[in-house]
């Protein structure tokens, strides 16, 4: 088990955002979290990344407790997150954004290699490499954010709504890229509003409702589950 979360609870001020969430991500798998806006999906990711500090419960990564570690150490251990809402650095160039994504990587040739790989996934980023990130269109910024998260060479990649604002052809391409990343050995946790896409991609799935795990199981089975179909797939 690469990531094993037990009894994770988190607070934003007085608001309880997560209550006693258990989640397992086996090495090499794709795990998806689905749920309405505000169900706690992003909070979960921020807690695992060490950005949200007021948490209780245990987060084990590769057999080692990481809850309480500072976020930069967590990144160095191989966890990376592409946050919701892109959050690129608008006044830095595309290339600088990507370089900073590899902040924890010391080896310059490794950085170059990963940069090439990101460019091969998203050729538009190479064309725009000298442009300020803030001048990119929304969809291009989304690609940059995903590329930046890949630059640290994660063993566990957490993607928070990566398809947001992307053209259908790019979403299609993104699905291929996510598969490819997984096939190269990276474990992925995926949060998506596009539940069809997420359940189609994932091995296991967790449904979050107001901070609790309401349902979990094989993604292919949840795809057939009536509640899921009605509440999250809209069919």
């Amino acid at each position: 088990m690469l990531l094993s979360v037990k009894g994770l609870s988190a607070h934003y001020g007085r608001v309880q955002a997560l209550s006693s969430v258990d989640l397992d991500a086996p090495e090499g798998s794709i795990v998806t979290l689905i749920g309405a806006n505000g169900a706690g999906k992003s909070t979960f990711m921020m807690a695992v990344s060490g950005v949200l500090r007021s948490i209780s419960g245990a987060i084990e990564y590769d057999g080692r407790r990481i809850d309480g570690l500072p976020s930069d150490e967590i990144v160095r251990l191989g966890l990376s997150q592409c946050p919701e809402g892109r959050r690129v650095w608008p006044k830095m160039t595309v290339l600088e954004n990507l370089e900073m994504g590899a902040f924890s990587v010391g080896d310059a040739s490794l950085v170059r290699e990963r940069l090439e790989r990101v460019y091969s996934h998203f050729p538009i980023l190479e064309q725009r490499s000298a442009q300020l990130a803030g001048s990119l269109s929304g969809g291009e910024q989304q690609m940059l954010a995903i590329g930046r998260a890949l630059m640290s060479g994660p063993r566990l990649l957490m993607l928070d709504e990566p398809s947001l604002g992307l053209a259908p052809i790019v979403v299609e391409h993104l699905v291929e890229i996510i598969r490819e990343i997984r096939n190269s050995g990276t474990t992925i946790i995926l949060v998506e509003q596009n539940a069809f896409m997420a359940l189609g991609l994932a091995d296991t799935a967790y449904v979050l409702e107001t901070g609790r795990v309401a349902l979990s199981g094989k993604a292919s089975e949840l795809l057939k589950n009536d509640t899921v179909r009605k509440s999250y797939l809209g069919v």
Partner: protein
Amino acid sequence: MLMVFLQQALNGIILGCIYALIALGLSLIFGILEVANFAHGEFYMLGAFMALFSMSGLGVSFFPALLIAMIGMGIIGALIERAVFRPIVGKPLINSMLLSFGLSTALANLALLLFGADPQKIESGLADYHLRFFGLHLTAERLMVLVVSVALVILLAWFIQSTRTGKAMRAVSQDRVAAQLAGINVSRIYTITFAISGALAAAAGTMVGAMFFVSPEMGFSVVLKCFIIIALGGFGKIRGVIVAAVMIGLAESLGGGFISYAYKDAYPFLLLVLLFMLKPQGLTGGSGR
């Protein structure tokens, strides 16, 4: 009349360079930690005393003393960040305003207690060498101030633009959470920011101590002026802050020389009001794109 104008302009530019050094540090702190540091003027004052005592106590000459002051204030700046500002990062601005105001008063009074109210002069040994060119007059000391501050500003701009740490500083200022997720140790960046700002303020203080004097209350008025400069130049914009600093220097010098010197502290404010009327986006604010 033209010569007087040019001489006043030259004086103003030198003054502006000093302001730029202090304001840039203040702007970095504001942009990266999102705290207002009213005690920044005291960093400048303590830096000047550090240089003064290095010269009188250790017997070193001016330039090594400048270096010692910069390093010393870098360290003190870093310690103050850890002890005082770290706990209030992310809290509303009023917290840091009140806290740093208190710190400013405490440091100024501590200096008054330790060093006395007497103003003292740092002897660079350069004030007695005179340069005359095209009818303009410049002492070697002022030339040194010009060269050192321009060099420091260029060094800072290069550092922020091109080094890994500098880029990380920009990343933190633009989106702190994204920087954390990229593996940047944000706390370390905060400390480095304070260290750099402290060192720049110390350099400015030392040079002002040579041109004018060192005294415990020298920091207070300068910090207000620097907040005006930051407002003029645009928050977190290096080029804007430099341009604004030189503009304020020129406004004081030319306004003081040609209108009335008794009200020269009013000119920066007038400039600020004027600019906000004409160009609400700030000096280097673009047309929206």
